[in-house]
């Protein structure tokens, strides 16, 4: 399955972000085209998470503009939400719901056509090695299993743009390898991946963005 018609490029121009009175980054521009991957690099606090939250629409950029093709993202937040998957630091796994229930809920919320969601939930669980855990409540899961449950959302409901904030945290080597294959397939179908990471994730042909280049030196107030 691939995205038809092929999605337009996702881009940002002259983005700036202010957090707690401090300029995190300024004058940042990027472009991701279908099949592309963009890796955000930079030390702690350089704004990788902030940039991903800006891209997802959780945070309004202080300056600049995000665009989907020619269309400004800020003008159509619901459409942007429908074409985006955001994976943040928290796994959003409810302790009293089973793995399948957790995943099914997010899948249906993203793509309400239940019939398709149910089927894709099964494949997503299989893909991330969760099939044998699907009736286990969230509170019994290890950190890595929770993360995999969260990542399974990517496959349970299709969306062209994936925004992932350190998706490899708590994952073992086998799961990382599987995630790399999932990324490759997604890009093969014309999807886009933006992720921040400290670990090496194999993303052949991925562009990189060093966030420390866009940091602003604090002026001394003397």
């Amino acid at each position, binding site marked *: 399955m691939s995205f038809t018609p092929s999605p337009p490029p996702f881009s940002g121009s002259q983005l700036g972000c202010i957090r707690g009175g401090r300029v995190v980054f300024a004058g940042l521009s990027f472009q991701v085209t279908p099949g592309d991957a963009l890796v955000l690099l930079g030390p702690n606090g350089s704004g990788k998470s902030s940039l991903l939250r800006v891209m997802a629409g959780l*945070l309004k950029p202080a300056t600049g503009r995000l665009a989907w093709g020619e269309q400004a993202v800020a003008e159509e937040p619901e459409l942007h939400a429908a074409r985006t998957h*955001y994976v943040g630091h928290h796994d959003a*796994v*409810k302790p*009293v*719901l089973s793995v399948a*229930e957790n995943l099914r809920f997010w899948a*249906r919320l*993203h793509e309400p056509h239940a019939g398709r969601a149910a089927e894709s939930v099964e494949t997503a669980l299989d893909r991330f090695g969760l099939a044998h855990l699907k009736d286990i409540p969230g509170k019994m899961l290890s950190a890595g299993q929770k993360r995999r449950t969260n990542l399974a959302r990517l496959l349970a409901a299709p969306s062209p743009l994936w925004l992932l904030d350190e998706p490899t945290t708590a994952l073992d080597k086998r799961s990382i390898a599987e995630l790399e294959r999932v990324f490759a397939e997604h890009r093969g179908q014309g999807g886009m991946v933006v992720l921040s990471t400290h670990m090496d994730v194999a993303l052949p042909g991925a562009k990189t963005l060093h966030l420390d280049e866009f940091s602003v030196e604090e002026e001394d107030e003397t």
Partner: protein
Amino acid sequence: MIRFLEVVRRDLRLALRQGSDSIMVVTFFVLTVVLFPFGIGPESGILERVSAGILWVTALLASLLSLDRLFQADYEDGSLELLVLTPTSLGIVVAAKVVAHWLTTGLPLLLAAPILAVLLHMNADGFGVLMLTMLIGTPILSLVGAIGAALVLGARRGGVLLSLLILPLYVPVLIFGVGAIDAAVQARSAEPHLLILAGLLAAALPLAPWAAAAALRQALE
């Protein structure tokens, strides 16, 4: 609409499995009301006179108890970020959460109220209106409470702050809720009070989810 029902179903399932919130709210309601005959004395005349006030004040406090969990759990485990990013208006998601909150806390209060009214020797003429005011009034509590719950997200001692914010806003519901019951007991028409309550509900229904949604966005920034 499917998304709305999906969120309601999920929150009901969560409440059912965790179980504690509804039971806690009703238990608090019953226990507190039962305290009044001990404090005031068993003279039925006095109890009868204040029964409507006691029931409504206690219902307000009981519903307040459960409010700080309305968004807090979702906020802590990251679900709220994903709910905000749902491809629909955030107001609809908030409305769904409020409906689930009412079903798990407002509805049990409504069901417990007539039993407690008997305990307080409330005049039987007031029972029907008591149920009506509860039916119109408790959804307002959940709706207005949702704004407060969204505003205090992430604040330290949010629960205390929430009561300070929300209790003053509950005053109109209290006044007209008690007013309607008193009117019915004194064989006057309760209709004006009930109409004003219904008007409050009609205003809160569209405005509260919208305001709470704005507060949630702010909390996540």
